[in-house]
């Protein structure tokens, strides 16, 4: 079977209308927005949610999630999950923070070093999966804990804050009234979308994830493809970390921990299959917006942080379960 046919089969879910699913996700987004608009309305301040600054805030919060989510979508398309994204984010941002704050290194160098470190950590994940042959969730779960150990070691349990203004532009600057995180996210998303859907590399991601043996026999060097996917994921996690600490102006050893569950939830809600070979970046984008809206609403309603993590846990179980049940019926 030719590669084109093979990937075409794996990409198009049998018996479903992809555009209908996509539309369904947009409808959910609109419904969630409407609910939040109504719930957060107060007599004093009116429709708080629909405030332009609040909406920009929602998209900016979603940006971090989307940047990581693009990487996660790619690894899930090519092979399997990357559970280490949160820890990669923490470690790279901690390294950048130390370089900027303690050693006063010029920020372009710090940014370059952090991105390089992220890519190297992705490479380690990829090598553990391909050459050592560890199951992806085990390899990346292992690196999750090791990397946390190193972040903790570097910061010695402290919090680090205060970065040069030049660096902070990527987090709190804005261009034509649009906050920089949103611009970074848009660039990442467009590049990711182009690579995944319009390049040979993208086809190889789909082919490898759909059926690794068939892909190997069609002449794809699957090990390289898988490693590339994990390198991209590590790189994007590092980028997300830089944007995040530039915005918050501080970093700590566990800064990325809270992103793992939401990212997985968002990617799966977006229609990317955990079984591999089906990646939907547009879905990831919309799902991340839904997640950000829910978070924002809970913040406005002053839901305690502990309950928010409970909601995210239930949300991920609910969406994956619904996804599995729908697939069985199809």
């Amino acid at each position, binding site marked *: 079977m030719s590669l084109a046919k093979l990937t075409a089969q794996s990409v198009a879910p049998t018996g479903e209308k992809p555009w209908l699913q996509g539309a369904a996700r947009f409808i959910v987004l609109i419904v969630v927005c409407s609910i939040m608009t109504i719930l957060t309305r107060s007599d004093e301040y009116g429709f708080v949610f629909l405030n332009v600054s609040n909406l920009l805030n929602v998209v900016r919060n979603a940006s971090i999630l989307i940047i990581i989510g693009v990487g996660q979508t790619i690894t899930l398309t090519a092979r399997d999950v990357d559970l280490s994204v949160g820890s990669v984010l923490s470690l790279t941002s901690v390294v950048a923070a130390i370089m900027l704050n303690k050693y006063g290194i010029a920020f372009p160098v710090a940014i370059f070093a952090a991105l390089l470190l992220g890519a190297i950590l992705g490479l380690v994940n990829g090598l*553990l999966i391909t050459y050592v042959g*560890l199951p992806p969730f085990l390899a990346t779960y*292992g690196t*999750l804990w090791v990397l946390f150990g190193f972040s903790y070691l570097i910061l*010695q349990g402290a919090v680090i804050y205060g970065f040069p203004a030049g660096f902070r532009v990527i987090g709190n600057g804005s261009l034509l009234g649009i906050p920089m995180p949103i611009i970074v996210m848009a660039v990442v998303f467009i590049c990711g979308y182009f690579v995944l859907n319009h390049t040979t590399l993208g086809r190889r991601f789909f082919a490898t994830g759909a059926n690794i043996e068939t892909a190997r026999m069609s002449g794809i060097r699957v090990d390289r493809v898988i490693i590339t996917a994990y390198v991209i994921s590590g790189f994007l996690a590092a980028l997300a970390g830089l944007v995040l600490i530039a915005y918050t102006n501080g970093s700590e050893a566990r800064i990325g921990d809270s992103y793992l569950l939401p990212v997985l939830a968002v990617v799966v809600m977006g229609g990317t299959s955990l079984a591999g070979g089906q990646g939907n970046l547009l879905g990831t984008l919309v799902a991340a917006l839904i997640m950000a809206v829910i978070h924002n609403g809970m913040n406005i309603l002053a839901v305690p942080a502990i309950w928010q993590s409970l909601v995210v846990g*239930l949300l*991920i*179980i609910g969406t*994956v379960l619904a996804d599995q049940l729908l697939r069985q019926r199809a």
Partner: protein
Amino acid sequence: MKPNVSSFLIRVPSAAWVILLMMTIFTAINTRYLTLDNIVNIVLQNAVLLILALGATLVILSEGLDLSLGSVLTLSGVTCAYVMESLMDSGTPHAVAMGAGVGVGLLTGALMGAITGGLVSLGKMPPFIASLGMMGVGSALSLVLAKSTAIYIRNPLFSFFGERLDRSIDLPLMQYFSMPAFIAIVVFSVVWVMLYHTPFGRCIIAIGGNESGARLSGINTVYWKWMVYVVAGVLAAISGITLAARLEAADSIVGVGWEFDAIAATILGGTSFAKGKGGIAGTVLGVMVIGIARNGLNVIGVQSLWQPALTGTIIILAIVFEIMLSRWKEGRR
């Protein structure tokens, strides 16, 4: 074929090599390492991990995975302490309060396991994502119940189950025995019987080896896959309660990361995700690798800041070594 050195080398589990190597290094650095006192200490510190790792091994033998074990450990400890302390506040005798607390703790573990198992077996969710979701739920509930701190336990009867015996029994040699070790031995024996002498064990090993084959030969795969998570949840609860007894407190984040140690111990012990092979005897060796690494770093005086990074790296390297070696062994056979 004549027996030679290499066939002997093949029969020794790779975890044993790692243990030997680490003990040599630690003894070389600090001669106090290899004393009976310290070995008793290692056993006391790792009895809880062994109980948890047995649960992880059972799940992995059935070709599943439970990342929620650490948070189930935390949650069961917290519910146990919560019930026990509330009952004692209202004047219930220590023994009754302890019985109720332990019962509630075990029930919590079983319930969490039942939900994870239900999601995996009935809902057909990938195990790591179902259990990752439950991990979020479990840790959130622990934080809520313990109000983000720890619940201190003032029940001497309960604390007895976490202590060395010389604290309460005035007999010679008692300092070499501890209740957690005793509990771990009992649990290990029970799990051994369940795994190798009951339908439960035969069915989960069959499911791990070849699930559709097991289904076609008449095994109710949905039921047994569900059961294995329930059992793992109960084992996590036992370890959580024992840990609470040892620390005389139930902390709301005490179990963070324990599931990784438990899974790593299983892999180090030679249980493999792919083929349903391995067993709980190897897991004991795996727990020893982790326990000896932890304790050794302490004894040779490595700063606590370095320990998470170093133990993590040692564990990953040991896993890579184990997998490389088992691949090499298969090539030789």
